């Protein structure tokens, strides 16, 4: 036989979703990632942080990506970072473990708070309406600390040094 025996897709297809870089729906600039409510409380005080934790949990239950199989979930979020849940119909599915939340004060009064999962390599991944954003890292040095996720205005990092030819030829790059 010259055809593949079986094909499964880890990222593409029905149950998958993709990590995206910060962009639309990303966290506001003042938002910070907290692994523990007490870390949050040191910055914002007890009550707002407890509220944010409850809200993140509720949002998580509604918006968490859901997978038919554990390996599909772990392909996205890493081994050991998924849990199984029962669906209303009696079946089971897998979703990432809630590990923290992003919180910030938005202009206009509405507080920003969204669930954060542990992704591959201890990365912190924020869920906003099903779109995923890398917002920092878990781990000994950074747990609970605020983690910068956007280069600052004064960043010495240069970007845009690749891609010009594609624009010049007004085409995709492949053949």
């Amino acid at each position, binding site marked *: 036989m010259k055809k593949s025996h079986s094909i499964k897709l880890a990222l593409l297809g029905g149950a998958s979703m993709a990590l995206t870089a910060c962009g639309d729906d990303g966290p506001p600039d003042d938002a910070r990632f907290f692994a523990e409510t007490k870390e949050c409380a040191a910055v914002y005080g007890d009550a707002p942080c407890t509220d944010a934790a409850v809200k993140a949990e509720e949002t998580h239950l509604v918006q968490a990506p859901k997978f038919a199989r554990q390996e599909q979930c772990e392909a996205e979020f890493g081994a050991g970072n998924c849990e199984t849940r029962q669906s209303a119909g009696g079946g089971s599915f897998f979703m990432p473990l809630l590990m923290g939340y992003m919180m910030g004060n938005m202009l206009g009064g509405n507080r920003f708070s969204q669930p954060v999962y542990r992704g591959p390599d201890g990365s912190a991944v924020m869920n906003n309406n099903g779109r995923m954003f890398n917002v920092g890292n878990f781990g000994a040095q950074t747990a609970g600390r605020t983690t910068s996720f956007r280069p600052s205005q004064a960043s010495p990092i240069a970007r845009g040094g690749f891609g010009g030819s594609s624009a010049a030829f007004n085409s995709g790059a492949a*053949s």
Partner: protein
Amino acid sequence: MKRETIAPRPDWRAHVERDLGFQFHTIGGALYWDETVCYRFTAEQIDALEAATAELEQMCLGLVDRVIDSGEEAFERLRIPRVAWDAVAGSWAAQEKNLYGRFDLAYDGASPPRLLEYNADTPTALFEAAVVQWDWLQATSPERDQFNSIHEKLIEAWANFDLRGERLYFSAVKAHAEDNGTTEYLRDTAVQAGLLTDRIAVEDIGWDGRQFVDLDNNPIRALFKLYPWEWLVQEEFGVHLLSGVAKVIEPAWKMVLSNKAALALLWEMAPNHPNLLPASLDPNAIAGKQVRKPIYSREGANVQLLDAGRVVAETPGAYGAEGFVYQAHTQIPAFDGNHPVIGSWVVASQPAGIGIREDVNAITSDTSRFVPHYFE
């Protein structure tokens, strides 16, 4: 080799979008994935395609060896930018592994398959060949066979790259659904092979003065790019890439094969080989009708069909600044008025399967339709 008209699955659009994540089945309003037709081959024909593909790949690797041995003169004939010469030679000396490539073949089912060109650096139509046509066959006639173990071979091939736990970034240009779909599919196979992966748009790659960085300023030390080497090396950050701070897939030596002047050098190396067409950098060296192709081009752009110096047909585009290669014209056989080109894949330099694109025009372009196949 027969072209068969068949009934498409009634729900195929929703199915391929939902279950396969295949979003570019329609391009610019025109059908791209076309399951109203398919091609049927015999086992002998598939064996012939497989053998020709293996032979062509070995010839190409032989050509790289030859070019690197002869040095400057060959690099110049291939129009490889001077700034990249050391990286090309160095990556070959270091025996850097390659992932994949696609030979475009003219084939009528009886004569030897003939090489039209080799997409060695940034081939696409991969997901369609590896997954979508396989899924079509499994859904419509799973008892039949198909020359296509591309998916399995890709997953195996990732083990060849010595990434030492390094995160591999997958990169394509923004806002191009086909390139991004292909890149995301390759990342899918890498994830299944156990690699750590991430993705970043070509335009978003950063340089911090010492190393490439992603949007979170994490270092990028391993990069898969669906973006031509000859563009990368001539852009602002090209000099950094050539300094070797990141492992790059495909390796730099693919520049020897990803330009169409290589067709002329192949013919010089193996004149009259049954799987090659006469090709030369000198139009006067090719008798009869000839096809003029830019040395660097994509998606069938700027191709001219010439008869005694007169332009019989051509495609538009912005390529050709580096000059042209002239290839003897071969009539791609017509099946019901359609010209199929066989895209024959190598993965880790081994034949892995085929995908067929057909076009009512004799010059296959990025608007050609992809049609599935089977054999028995």
